[in-house]
Structures are given as C-alpha cells and as structure tokens.
C-alpha cells in the first residue's frame, strides 16, 4: 500500500528541501508520495525540474501563505 510522507523543510538552510527529498525517495517504495514543505520559492521550480530529469513523477505544487508544498511520487 502506497504511503505519503510529509517533510517540513521550511526554513531549513542545510541540507535543504531538495536534499531532504532525495534522501526520502531513497527510503520510499515505488508508488509512495513525498510532500516537501519549503519556504524557498526556488523549490517550486527546482524540484519539478530535478524530478523530471531522474524520472520520478511530479504530482503538483500548492502555494500557501509564505511556503510551497511540492508533491512527488517515486516512480522507479
């Protein structure tokens, strides 16, 4: 059964949202979703770009008050 995990990386300077996502995807199983909360606007573009490059599935981004929620599904 696919799981969904949320990582609150808001205000995280190091290792930062994308590093957290990469680490979480390594531990996830195919079909699992990882939601990253980031206060860095760059995450809204960087994460989908990286996900497309490595072949995972970009589910979507939601803009909230001062932060972005980016959801990715592990595809391989």
């Amino acid at each position, binding site marked *: 059964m696919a799981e969904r995990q949320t*990582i609150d990386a808001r205000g*995280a*300077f190091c290792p*930062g949202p994308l590093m957290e996502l990469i680490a979480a995807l390594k*531990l996830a199983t195919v079909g699992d979703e990882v939601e990253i909360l980031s206060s860095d606007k760059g995450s809204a573009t960087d994460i989908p770009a*990286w996900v497309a490059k490595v072949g995972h599935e970009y589910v979507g981004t939601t803009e909230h008050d001062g932060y972005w929620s980016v959801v990715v599904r592990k595809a391989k």
Partner: protein
Amino acid sequence: MSKSILIVGGGLSGTIVANGLCRQLGEQLRTGAVTITMIGNSEQHLYQPGLLYVPFGRIREHELFRDQRRVLDRRVNLFVDPAKNVDVENGQVITEAGRSFKYDYLVLATGSRCMPQSVPGMKEGAHWFYELEAARKLRDALTDFQGGKIVVNVNAPHKCPVAPLELTLMLHEYLQGRGLRDKTEITYTYPIGRLHSLEPVAHWAGPVFEQTGIKSEIFFNTEKVDPEKKTITSMEGVELPYDLLITVPPHEGAQVISDSNLGKGGWVPTNTKTLHREGSTNVFVVGDTTNIPISKAGSTAHFEADVLIDNLTSLVTEGRFARDYDGKAFCFIETGFATGTYVWFNYQTPPTVAPPSQMLHWFKLAYNRLYWLSARGLL
C-alpha cells in the same frame, strides 16, 4: 523513588549528555535519587572529524581515540553491549547479550553510518574517509597515485556536510605539494544544483573552484559505480571516468532503530524544538539519530545535547522543561592546509561564511584537541 536515565549510544551526543547530566545532577547521583546508564557499542571513543586528516597523513591515529570509560564520568554505568531492541511501548531496551534495561527517561543517540553497499559497485570501486579503515585505504591509494582523474562524489544524505568540500580543497593542495596537480583532473559531484547545500557556502566555493581548477558536476545522484570500467554514473544520466574515486556514501541511521520500528532508515521522527520522539513524553532523540531537517553534524549534536542536559535536569529537579533547541549549528571549514573558515546558523538566522584565515585554521586544529573537553561536558 530513584529516576533512571538510560542513554543508548556512546558517541559524541550520548557522551556529552551523560557527562553533562553528571555535572548538573551531582547531588541526586550521590543520594541515589538518579541513576545514569549508557549502552554503547565500543570501549573506544572516536573523534570522527579527525578522520578527514588521515588520508593526508596529518593526524596520528592515537589522537583519534580515547578509552570510553575514561571519557565518561565515573558515575555513569557503562555497558559495552549494543542495543538490539528498543521497546518504547513497554519502556525497555534489550541488548545483544540479552540484558534488559528499564528507564524513566530514554535518550536515543545511536548516530548514523555509511552505506556504500546501498549503491551498486560503490563499496568495491570507491574510497571514502568517514570510517577509519576506509580512510587508511584512501591514504594508501593517494600515496600510490601518480596522476589521472579523481572524482570526489557526494551522496545524500550524509553527515558532516562541509567535509567533502574540505577534503577536495585539501586534496588540491596535497597534489600540488607532490607535484601532481598538473597531471590530475579533480571533479567534484554534488546531488543538488549548486556546490553545497548551504547557499552562501556554495557561492563562496564557486570562485574557489575556478581559481584552483577543480571541475564540478551538479545534480549528480549516484546510480552505480563500475569498478571494472572505472566509471561512475548518475541517476541524471551522466557518466564520469575515474582513476581514483573518493565518495561520501549515502548514510542511514542505526540498524537497531529500524529493527525497533522507530523510524524509516534509522531516523527517528523528532520534535524540532523539544527533541522528544514524536509520540513519546519520556523518550528524547539527539544527534544524527533525529529526522529533523538540519545538518547531521557534530556541532548540531553538541548543541542539541546541551539543551537536553538542561531539560532532563529541569524535569528531574523541577518537573518542568527548561528551553527549546533553536536549530543551532556551527561548522569549521578547512579551506586547505593553511587556512580555514566557519559557518553558523540556526532556525531563524541564515548562514554566513567568514573570510578564510590562518587564525581560523589554527582554531580548528586546536579544537581537534579541545574536543575531548567537549565530550567530557566541560566546553
């Protein structure tokens, strides 16, 4: 009735917590109102940041170790008998030798470990320096190296986030010193779209790499290493040839954490301020063991440990919490063999990089020895 504090893990954070509590709870320890017990994995305490210097012959191995029983306050009951199962529902820890420990307060300080075996070919084809035996092998490989392509490959997640940069800059100077720099191409790979996760460090490193002729490959997450062909390939589809591969392997937390169902990958879900294990009121997590999205670094572990010492002391003596952890981290950065800098930040304060200087390098070298005072809870 006596309160028992049980610490699982005898590394930096567990040791600082144990010694700090002894300093704060002297009276309670004397009367028997409190007991402090540590379950560790080794009779020896290793100063992990010192491993950075091993490949370059710039630290003696005996400087890296102290007898754990001598580092620990003698009022701590030490059992060198690794934890096998942590049962937070029943408040009990079972060790590999079959001992059973109950607790009133539990501190999980089980740390993290390199997992080169999690990437095909990495264990066979790469060198690393985060473990002593591997650092020795890298030292020997560097001694034999006569020029060619060196790839310094960084993987996520890993502890001590500045160490890969430090090693790369020290490697540059090491090769210069041996007259091999002109015959060597150094390529540094990093998982995200800049040279370091800390943006100011990445901005600082860019011009330094240009000046020193170090190449880089960003957005590089290792998929496999081919030890026969001597190539490393990324999930992003880039293949790099190498003559010598130095990697920072992906890390995981301790096996006992995964085996006890306390957290995927050995990382325990932890409150970012109180350091409580999520779902527990008497279980705390410190150092690399947490899943808090901050640097897994010795300084982080140290500052967390300081908070935990205050909070456990206040809980025992006053029944209340003392203060929150503010996310503080402070990392020295060696920028070669003669200069150094540092970076610090917390949850609220963005990081800044100080200008590199000889003075900061000397301070870092001094801290390599002062560490033993930190471990004893004195600094």
